[in-house]
């Protein structure tokens, strides 16, 4: 590596400088990442722009990432095929009598949804359509409604299955099964924090309550939701038991949801199925295209050993596991404001991994800190995908819902701190159920 014409510092300035300039000029992130590589590729005699094509090819030629379109497709099929409707009904019978009923249902539905789909953007897109209008009609504030829909959508990547965990497992080689188990408790805690937040809002602003569902209603709603809830067990259980790989489990989720929608609930036409395919293709390819150019960018960072140069300073700070955990969370929270989670994992996950290892942090603990922090990045501006989706469904600019979103993030960040301080929160389930995965 001594033969590189640029020193790590110079290369880093060129790479990040070009990237940020382009991105301020509103060049799409995917292209800005690729273009940022060009000056280096032109300057460095041993490299050529051919590398961009090679690296994007290598990134897309991945069986692991195939789970992304499958999870998005599962989510679209759930919405058109009537699965979501049943889950709304079940959520209503469970939390409809709490203050802020509809908003509580919004959060609880995200938990159920998270257990089936691994995509937060799919959750934000579908629940924004279901809840924002309905909540406003019942007298909830518009900005509150947008914010709660967006922040509850982040649960989808924390509670298994999760696209981010699959990507993390592919890039940093951590057991996906162990991450699935580890994500469960943190997800439930964050959901609980959100429900408390809704409760406080509901008390202050006097939001409406539904009459308490009878036990019979609850059982009926539970009964018709069983086939839908089974999806979660098939997907997560199938992976844990080694029946299929995470990617295959996502394909099983698609098949199962299609079966449910076509044969059991019978609510899907061919046109709707085609629309779901188009929607899935659109959403997954823009996210994944970004992964390709981010990989090229990350490859250059590694070529100049920039991560090592950056960490040389940090590792002399003498951090313990908890300090390192806060540092990692801080980096991912900041990065998550500007970058999509998948390229962030590829670029920064690989940079931070040696730091986590050097302080003796459990790789699964590291993964959960990273994933939860990046999940919060889905609602932090300027680049908060879920917030952008919810705002665009509601037809308002992002700054409109900003204040409520930030307020709701405070209890969620407290939960993240708890996860950092007590590694047992994420680690207890994998330790009890599948200790061999933690090794």
């Amino acid at each position, binding site marked *: 590596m001594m033969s590189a014409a640029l020193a790590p510092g110079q290369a880093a300035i060129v790479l990040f400088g070009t990237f940020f300039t382009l991105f*301020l000029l*509103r060049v799409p992130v995917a292209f800005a990442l690729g273009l940022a590589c*060009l000056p280096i590729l032109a300057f460095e005699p041993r490299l*050529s722009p051919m590398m961009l094509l090679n690296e994007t090819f290598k990134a897309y*030629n991945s069986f692991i990432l*195939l789970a992304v379109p*499958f999870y998005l497709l599962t989510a679209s099929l759930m919405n058109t095929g009537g699965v979501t409707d049943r889950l709304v009904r079940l959520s209503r019978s469970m939390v409809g009598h709490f203050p802020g009923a509809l908003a509580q249902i919004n959060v609880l539905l995200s938990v159920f949804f998270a257990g089936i789909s691994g995509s937060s953007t799919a959750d934000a897109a579908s629940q924004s359509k279901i809840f924002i209008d309905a909540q406003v009609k019942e007298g909830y504030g518009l900005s509150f409604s947008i914010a709660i829909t967006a922040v509850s959508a982040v649960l989808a990547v924390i509670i298994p299955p999760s696209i981010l965990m699959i990507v993390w497992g592919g890039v940093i080689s951590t057991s996906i099964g162990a991450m699935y188990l580890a994500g469960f408790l943190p997800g439930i805690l964050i959901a609980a924090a959100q429900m408390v937040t809704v409760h406080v809002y509901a008390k202050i602003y006097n939001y409406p309550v539904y009459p308490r569902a009878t036990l019979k209603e609850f059982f009926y709603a539970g009964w018709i939701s069983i086939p839908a809830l089974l999806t979660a067990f098939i997907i997560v259980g199938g992976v844990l038991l080694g029946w299929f790989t995470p990617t295959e489990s996502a394909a099983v989720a698609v098949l199962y949801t299609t079966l449910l929608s076509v044969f059991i609930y019978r609510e899907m036409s061919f046109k709707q199925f085609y629309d779901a395919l188009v929607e899935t293709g659109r959403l997954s390819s*823009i996210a994944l295209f970004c992964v390709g150019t981010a990989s090229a960018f990350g490859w250059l960072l590694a070529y100049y050993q920039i991560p090592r140069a950056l960490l040389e300073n940090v590792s002399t700070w003498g951090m313990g596991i908890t300090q390192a955990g806060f540092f990692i969370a801080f980096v991912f929270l900041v990065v998550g404001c500007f970058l999509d989670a998948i390229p962030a994992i590829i670029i920064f996950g690989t940079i931070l991994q040696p730091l986590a290892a050097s302080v003796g942090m459990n790789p699964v603990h590291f993964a959960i800190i990273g994933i939860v922090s990046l999940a919060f990045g889905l609602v932090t501006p300027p680049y908060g995908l879920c917030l952008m989706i919810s705002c665009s469904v509601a037809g308002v600019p*992002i700054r409109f819902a900003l204040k409520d979103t930030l307020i709701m993030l405070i209890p969620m960040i407290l939960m993240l701190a708890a996860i950092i301080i007590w590694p047992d929160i994420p680690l207890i389930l994998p330790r009890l159920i599948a200790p061999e995965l933690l090794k």
Partner: protein
Amino acid sequence: MKRFLDGFHRGLTWLMAAMVGILIIPVTLQIVSRYTALIPSWIWTEELSRFLFIWMIMLGSMVAVREGTHFVVDVLPQLPPRPHAAVQIVADLGVLVFAGIFTWYGIEFVKFGWNQTSELADLPMPFIFAAWPLAGLTWIVFLGEHFVRNFRIVAGRAPA
């Protein structure tokens, strides 16, 4: 011209959706073949699904350029229509450079793979590599449409 572009756009969208739909088949076969003796466990299912996946992403990236749905980060405040169109032209120029690289080196990429076949299924690699120059060219065409529209807005000859 608009009709041609609309048709092309629709064709690409249809192909992309087809890729998503077809993708499910090899992955399902892979699971079925592992647990039953109904079909032999073909080793190429995994490779074929990866190649379909590559085409899906590249087709989707083409569609997204026309629809303007590639992720953009809005740090700058909302501008009035004419300055906005001017900024858009600059941003599109960036994408154009990238499109040029994909086209030019994409052709090299296809030539490089000319005599290669894939490891498992013996598929000719140019079929896969062709997605890169095709994406480059398609971006250039769709960007041309953006340039015309934005120049007219900047020149004040079209309502924003």
